[in-house]
């Protein structure tokens, strides 16, 4: 009995320690964002909310290009997510449900491209962007990534299981075009798979750092992540302001996660854990 109770405490303790370490940085982020600069020099350190949150948010939003950067990032994330959803679902559907010569080979080829490490491409891709005049332009951020092998693979797997062939045949007999069948019949069925792909792509675009860092040079066009590091340089002696910016950049993605957490987590494991 005693042994059982001890292990129960140990088990619960481990879990709550995990929960604490996951949550604490978020909590501390809000604490810092609600404080003045002098507060954080105090020993013992402050661990409770202050009264400066609104003022700090105002300062961050007005004194830098932070607000502009948020709009920029939103624009890039929405456009690239939309394009990815369209092109990936179209290609994924095609691989799953249409018959054509070389399908097997083309699909294997597509999968094998996933193994090329992105870092190898960064320098030549930058030089290429420079040559065609896309450096400093969102085109360089959006166009090369508007179709990806992972998404096509993901949609194909889903379509194979979820879309009955008889439904597609019925549509064909009714005289629907191939594209019409995809658009009006297959696409609505794909919704759950599209939802994961959408969150995943949006997060990727929102959080991306290295490529925008290399491509963008005009502060007016900076994305949120670049604006954050810039904020750090600008206010490196005023930590609460830097943290306020970090908080503002994190909240949207946290909200999305709160609404779609289950979809997100099951989507993540789908790729790793096969039956």
């Amino acid at each position, binding site marked *: 009995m005693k042994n059982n109770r001890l292990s129960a405490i140990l088990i619960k303790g481990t879990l709550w320690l995990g929960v604490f370490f996951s949550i604490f940085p978020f909590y501390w982020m809000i604490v810092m964002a609600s404080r003045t600069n002098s507060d954080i020099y105090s020993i013992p350190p402050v661990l409770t909310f202050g009264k400066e949150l609104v003022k700090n948010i105002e300062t961050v939003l007005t004194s830098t290009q932070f607000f502009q950067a948020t709009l920029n990032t939103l624009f890039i994330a929405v456009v690239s997510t939309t394009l990815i959803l369209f092109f990936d679902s179209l290609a994924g559907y095609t691989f799953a449900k249409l018959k054509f010569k070389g399908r097997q080979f083309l699909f294997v080829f597509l999968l094998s491209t996933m193994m090329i*490490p992105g870092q190898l491409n960064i320098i030549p891709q930058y030089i290429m962007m420079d040559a065609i005049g896309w450096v400093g332009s969102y085109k360089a951020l959006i166009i090369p990534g508007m179709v990806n092998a992972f998404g096509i693979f993901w949609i194909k797997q889903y379509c194979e299981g979820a879309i009955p062939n008889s439904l597609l045949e019925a549509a064909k007999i009714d005289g629907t075009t191939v594209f019409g069948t995809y658009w009006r019949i297959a696409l609505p069925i794909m919704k759950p798979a599209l939802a994961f792909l959408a969150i995943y792509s949006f997060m990727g675009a929102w959080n991306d750092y290295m490529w925008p860092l290399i491509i963008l040079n005009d502060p007016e066009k900076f994305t949120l992540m670049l604006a954050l590091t810039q904020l750090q340089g600008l206010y490196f002696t005023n930590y609460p302001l830097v943290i306020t910016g970090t908080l503002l950049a994190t909240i949207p993605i946290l909200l999305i996660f709160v609404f779609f957490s289950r979809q997100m987590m099951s989507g993540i494991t789908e790729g790793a854990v096969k039956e």
Partner: protein
Amino acid sequence: MEATSKNEQHLKKRMYWNKLIDRATPYIFISPFYLLFIGFSLFPLIFAGILAFSQWDGIGEIEFVGLENFLRLIGDDVFWLSLKNTLIIWVVQTVPMLLISLIVAYIINLSVIKNKEFYKTTLFLPYVTSVVAVTILFGLIFSNQNGLINALLQMVGLEPISFLTSPFWVRIVIAAVGFWQYLGYNMIIYYSGLAKIPNDYYEAAIIDGANKVQIFTKITIPLLKPIILFTVMMSTIGGLQVFAEAQILVPSNATAEGGSLTIVYYLYHTAFMQNNYGYGATISWGLVAIILVFSILNWYLTTRRIKGEE
């Protein structure tokens, strides 16, 4: 008479066209991927191959220098330092992270635990945040002058530690960022693997008199092996490409700071700060070679496992 044959001809032509369009449709639907791949991956990849044998500052002429870059890479102390840093950060981060995430997943999967969804969601939360935000946050938590950790150290009467300027500690901080961010991700993957192990196996083992440790090492671990290998491989590839953490924590001059210079940081610095694109490309080939070695190692381990089971 003539009119009908003309009509017929017209109809034939249309049918021919329709057939052709039908045939072409799938290829049109999948073409965006291949066009983009050729334009933005394959072509640059070939170019990267040429660049690695060249000297180029991005403005003047591309000068072919043969193997010079590769010889320089082999004798480049900074490159080996960056490799050393990357591997240290990777080991310090990955080994405890995977171990702990497996233990936590195992605990959450226990039948006595209620609110599984709560634990899973909370622990997964760090994964969705951006590496930039997390790094800035950790940079302040570990800040030399007034970071939270140093404030706590001083409170209990210890000397503050220069986390961000000591080569030893900066690696630990970079590893901590990744540890915090990806623990929940790996936990979720382990959890869904564990949840798929049929309960019968455990029951049979209990009937045979196996204890908890035996059950864990003889049933859970072997059945989870493919998933463990997957997480090891993902963490290896991710770990070898660490960049943002290092660049944000030590933005000034990476080469001077020793501990924070990772391979990708060195690549970035060489190509985009010093405009040495040729040598930068060579460094990226070095990185690819290292990733390849680890992938082959992983592949070897996986296939050996399958052969061993047969």
